[in-house]
């Protein structure tokens, strides 16, 4: 069961890679927004970090993560406490949370944008969601990102059109804070895994998905990526991990998260 599988999708590879963001976080609330982040958090809670806490994406804390989508008749979720939206902020501001989210833009400082694209602030060309909880998340607790389509429209040259979350930008550093206070974990994309552990908080390549080159990553990023001398290949899922993913996603929602649902090994 611990041997790497040979037949797996890119989505499944990303779920396993993204689950590592939660592995060493201890007893924190794991919030994965979107199918792949949620499955990543669920996988970690069931394997690598069983101390994680999770909600039902509404208002109850669960001792066991819920599967995605419609549940079988008679399914009873494993409530362990109540966690309504107002109480979420008590948790957020305590710092005991790790969220994985999918912003529309990420810049070289790790700042992200969920709000608006182009035009002016008064009249954006494309209005999206708004800042949501990103400002508070980013200054209160660690966050990771999932990007289903790695390209230079997401990883933008220059700053994000609207900065929803704080990053490693010295010019925006609040008085009395240090850049080390900003905690960005992993950035998992359809090409690779990255973090902000390069020199001076530069975005750096952590691992390449099978069949992807470092040049491809650089070509699809709007700013310079730090590429260490030796870069690992993202580990393939094990049979045990795949079995848990299937159990957590019985309706195969993961197949619709990355364009054309590619195979995991593209070499």
């Amino acid at each position, binding site marked *: 069961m611990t041997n790497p599988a040979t037949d797996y999708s890119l989505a499944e590879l990303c779920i396993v890679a993204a689950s590592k963001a939660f592995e060493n976080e201890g007893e924190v609330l794991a919030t994965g927004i979107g199918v792949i982040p949620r499955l990543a958090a669920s996988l970690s809670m069931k394997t690598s970090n069983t101390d994680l806490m999770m909600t039902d994406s*509404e208002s109850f804390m669960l001792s066991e993560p819920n599967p995605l989508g419609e549940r079988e008749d008679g399914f009873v979720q494993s409530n362990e406490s109540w966690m309504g939206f107002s109480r979420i902020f008590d948790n957020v501001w305590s710092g005991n949370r790790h969220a994985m989210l999918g912003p529309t833009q990420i810049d070289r400082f790790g700042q992200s944008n969920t709000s608006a694209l182009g035009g002016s602030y008064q009249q954006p060309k494309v209005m999206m969601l708004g800042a949501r909880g990103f400002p*508070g998340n980013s200054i209160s607790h660690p966050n990771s990102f999932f990007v289903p389509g790695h390209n230079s429209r997401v990883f933008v040259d220059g700053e994000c059109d609207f900065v929803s979350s704080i990053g490693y930008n010295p010019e925006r550093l*609040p008085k009395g804070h240090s850049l080390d206070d900003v905690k960005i974990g992993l950035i998992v994309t359809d090409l690779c895994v990255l973090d902000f552990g390069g020199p001076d908080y530069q975005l750096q390549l952590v691992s390449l998905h099978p069949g992807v080159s470092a040049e491809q990553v650089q070509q699809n990023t709007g700013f310079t990526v730090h590429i260490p001398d030796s870069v690992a290949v993202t580990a393939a899922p094990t049979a045990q991990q795949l079995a848990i993913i299937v159990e957590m996603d019985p309706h195969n929602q993961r197949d619709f998260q990355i364009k054309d649902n590619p195979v995991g090994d593209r070499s």
Partner: protein
Amino acid sequence: MDKQMSAAEVVAQLEDGMTIGIGGWGPRRKPMALIRQILRSDLKDLTVVSYGGADVGMLCAAGKIKKLVFAFVSLDFIPLEPYFRQARQGGALEVMEIDEGMMLLGLRAAAWGVPYIPTEVGLGTDIIKQNPEIKVIDSPYDDKEWVAMPALKLDAALIHVDHADKRGVCHIAGPDHYLDDWYARAASKTYVSCDELVDTDFFKDPAIARQVHWERSATTGVVHVPGGAHPSSCVPQYGFDVAHFKAYAGSAKTEEGFAGYCKAYLGESEAEYQENVGGLDAIQSLALPTY
């Protein structure tokens, strides 16, 4: 005391230029019957504070909003609210865009009668850059700077609940009361629509009484409107109306736009509206959402 009113009587108490807070969250438990009554009125120039869904979208589309205080506007399963987007992309909307938690702090400050609550939320982001009225201040206790989230004082709050008695005791049966208690407390006047009007005895059950989140003195008026949250959800009574939200979002892509939506559904009264959307029975049998 009998606080029962009609939706029209609520709207008659609202004035142009008021700051109105709207309870619920995205597509969940929104006081939509009261919003519809505003759509039927000539009320205008409102400042709206909301964890926004179609409440904000419709008020934007009808030109009722002068200024919007928001962290997001979304229908969740339709992530981008069509008429909110049109309003923003049209450039006409004045906005105060803040973090979800900052909105909670602003409501708390208003409820507690303090001018602001300090927080680190917003620092390092465009929230403070785009909102010069939100001040960043020094602390008397440390060497850091802090965002002074100003009180969001509401002239009125509009909230939908499951059960209320005529004295304004309000029960929210669903899994979350969201931030509705803070809306009720932040407002000079709070108008509540309810799916069921109940006798005071209803609250004798301690499990029910624990789901009453503000005292009745914070409720100004009670409007009995079964199905009044439609097309948003009022779990456990009914889910949100996926098909209706799709038709609503679809209307934004047509030439007629929101006028076409109103012509098809709004009607002159809530009874007419409910008839246009398939009747109260249909609303009450909408499937509950699974997340």
